[in-house]
């Protein structure tokens, strides 16, 4: 009940404040209602909206800012922490757009800028971002490559190695769907007992799916004299 009352009061205050203030503006998403509905104060909601508006005025995509704000509010992040995260993200979005422009993408779409910002957040450098964008070719593929490199970095593979692995994959002719498999392949190799360093070596060799050892649960050659056992076959035989 307390929480509901707080939300209702917040909405009323928020409504009064916004009635006096300017609206969110054309094309700028208004995140305030969602934030207040999740229990954020009207003050915080307005501060977040201001960051969103400023982001839009800089020509940067607002989607990642809104998404981060909603994530923070869902997780009940403290207001100061949420605002700091949003401002940091806005800075990364600016760096990401700059890197994309330097990679000869004159009008980078929001998806590409967002993916590049995510990569920068994983410790990748603007040069890594430029390398990935150039190697991918189409913008859609570049977006995928940036997301995959970010995932590989999150799995413990160094940012330079992750960048080179994705770059090599694109240059060897792999499409986006195959590049998207790299994180699962890396995870699979790690699950099989390889160290992150070994996985990295294999990724850079361009053969992440290489067979390292036979699967002994597979039966040896059918009919060969060397019998493999599969529990229930071949069945026991009477002499």
């Amino acid at each position, binding site marked *: 009940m307390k929480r509901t009352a707080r939300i209702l009061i917040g909405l009323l205050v928020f409504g009064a404040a916004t009635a006096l203030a300017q609206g969110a503006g054309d094309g700028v998403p208004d995140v305030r209602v969602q934030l207040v509905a999740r229990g954020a104060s009207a003050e915080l909601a307005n501060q977040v909206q201001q960051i969103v508006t400023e982001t839009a005025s800089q020509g940067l995509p607002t989607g990642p800012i809104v*998404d*981060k704000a*909603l*994530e*923070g*509010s*869902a*997780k009940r992040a403290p207001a100061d*922490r949420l605002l700091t*995260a949003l401002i940091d993200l806005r800075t990364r979005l600016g760096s990401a757009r700059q890197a994309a422009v330097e990679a000869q993408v004159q009008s980078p779409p929001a998806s590409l800028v967002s993916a590049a910002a995510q990569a920068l*957040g994983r410790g990748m450098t603007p040069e890594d971002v430029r390398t990935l964008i150039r190697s991918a070719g189409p913008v859609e593929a570049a977006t995928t490559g940036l*997301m*995959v490199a*970010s*995932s590989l970095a*999150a*799995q*413990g593979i160094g940012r330079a190695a992750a960048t080179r692995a994705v770059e090599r994959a694109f240059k060897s002719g792999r499409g*986006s769907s195959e590049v*998207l*498999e790299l*994180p*699962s392949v*890396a*995870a*699979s190799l*790690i*699950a*099989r*007992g*390889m160290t*992150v360093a070994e996985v990295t*070596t294999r990724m850079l060799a361009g*053969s992440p*799916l*290489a*067979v*390292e*050892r*036979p699967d*002994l649960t597979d039966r*040896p*050659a*059918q*009919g*060969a*004299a*060397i*019998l*493999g*056992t*599969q*529990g*229930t*076959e*071949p*069945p*026991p*035989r*009477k002499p």
Partner: protein
Amino acid sequence: MRTVTLLVLAGGLAASPLAAQNASIFLGGVHARYADSVTGTAGLLSARIGHTGRRAATLFDANFSRFATGEAAVQVAGQGVLTWPLSGAASVGIIGLGSVSTFDGGTQSGILAGGPVLLIGVRRVGGSIRLGGGGVRRVDGSELSLFTAEARFDTRITRNLTFTAQTAGTRAGSLRFADLGGVLTYERPVLRVEAGIGARAGDLPDNPEWRVRLEIRPTGGTVLEAAAGAYPRDVSGFTSGGFASVGLRFMVPGRIPLVTRRTVAVQRLGRATVKVSIAVPDARAVAIAGEWNGWTPAPLARDAGGRWSVELALSPGVYRFALLVNGDRWTVPDEIAAVPDEFGGKAALLVIP
């Protein structure tokens, strides 16, 4: 409906040595009909233990069978391999294997062999070449030297479908024969279906070999196995025959199943719809929130074996998400790539290929 199971980001960054082991007990029955028209029905009890490391793997099976007529048979077999990488795409190794079969306490037959192996794998294609030498003790007490050469080719046709072709040449004493076969395997987290055929030319000609195997894993710890087929004569002196078997394999707690069930599995249901299944043992309620739904927790349905699932409309890409467990605890699944969320917690990465 095209159904594709994608195993996503399942590996832990620091898998413990035990995570690569497997141990299990199998209970079941088999009915066999041999070429000399003798038939037999037996109960089966078998045990398997194996270990897979970075450079070595071992697997041992012990099977005890008691026929309806009272006789008992014991089959024990073991295999081991040690490998050294040559490059990112090739390894060399040594394989050793042996097996012994006894019937009512008397040794029937045995094989001991070993040799080098070359393994090659690039992208969706892999293969191996093996050479082996050793000896065979036949059911009649005679002994033969044994030499084999075997080539194997594996290819992944789709995410769930693999094809393996094998050919082997065998020389056992004065016997010389060659085998050629292929196996098609369809695998999903809860299901594995295998169908194979083979043919032989040379001194031990026989009817075409065939077999089908089915494995259903209703839980992470139990596997229903069923198999049927026809097998050829072998150098030990056994006749050919056919069989059908069924049973349950129980995984020893603390070990992984024969095929690991991943922490997070994604099953594609359509062009833009996926089913996400996540292992969250001991939870009373689990909800998922991510960048696709404005971080609004959406409840997951409880499945068997401590897994929870939900259908999502997601196109290929990488998505940040987190789980809300029991309504009050934000977390990410074990053994999945995750990044700091900048709020003191983590966000997991869901990859939809």
